């Protein structure tokens, strides 16, 4: 009975895991590179991806919040980047635009302007 419950729970959780770790090409457009400069307002410090939310001023002067998907917290920590390095800091992000037209980017690299810490993605092709 316990085993059946475990399997059932596993099945319930599977879609959540799949949603968290998606393929790049399903969500992002490799033909649309984009560079953003903004200020970090929120951070999702998680694995397999961390999510950095940045406020970017558009050409019309309006501020838009962009969601930046980067390597996971474990990879960032190994690269010497800590959670505390992000909030309120200015960041330059280079990556690829989301296919669905939302302000979302997959980061190839980002640079924390004040601390000059840089992270360059080296994840292998899926």
């Amino acid at each position, binding site marked *: 009975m316990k085993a059946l419950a475990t399997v059932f729970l596993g099945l319930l959780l599977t879609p959540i895991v799949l949603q968290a770790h998606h393929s*790049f090409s399903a969500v992002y457009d490799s033909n*649309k590179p984009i560079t953003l400069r903004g200020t970090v307002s929120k951070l999702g410090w998680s694995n397999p991806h961390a999510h950095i939310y940045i406020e970017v001023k558009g050409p019309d002067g309006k501020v838009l919040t962009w969601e930046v998907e980067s390597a996971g917290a474990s990879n960032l920590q190994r690269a010497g980047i800590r959670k505390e390095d992000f909030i309120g800091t200015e960041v330059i992000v280079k990556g690829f635009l989301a296919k669905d*037209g939302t302000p979302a980017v997959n980061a190839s690299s980002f640079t924390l302007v004040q601390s000059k810490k840089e992270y360059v993605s080296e994840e292998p092709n899926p």
Partner: protein
Amino acid sequence: MKRVPITLGLALLVGVSSVSRAQTRPDFSGTWTFNQSKSTKGIAGNTPIVPFPSQIVVKQTATELYVEGTSVRQAPLKAVFRLDGSKVTLEAPRGITETGEARFEGATIVVTTRRSFSSPAGETVVDFKEIWTLAGNVLTIEKTRTQSGESDTETAVYDKV
């Protein structure tokens, strides 16, 4: 009487100049495969800042350069450049406009392209500059991506198939 030698001299000068220009122009034609071990580190990874095709097919004539690049995640990108450096509109995926030009600078080819598309940040433009150099069966492409005042350069090496 003096007119004949002058005309002859001019003709020879033009002829020699054309021949020497043709001789300094290497032929980049062929099928070229990306060699990751000889290329710079920044090209590797899931989403490289400066993307390169994994294979390039080049057909070069006296006036044109046909380039077809294939990559893991992209549909083949085909381009026909005029080697006089005039601007051409390139074939691009839906929603993207791309123009470019190619010209010889000595023994190298310089290819510049400008890609534009709309994004939540407004009209977005990215410029690429490629410098192609040939050494036997090795093609080296130095490529610079410039966008929003930020530039990155990487170098890819291709072996002839």
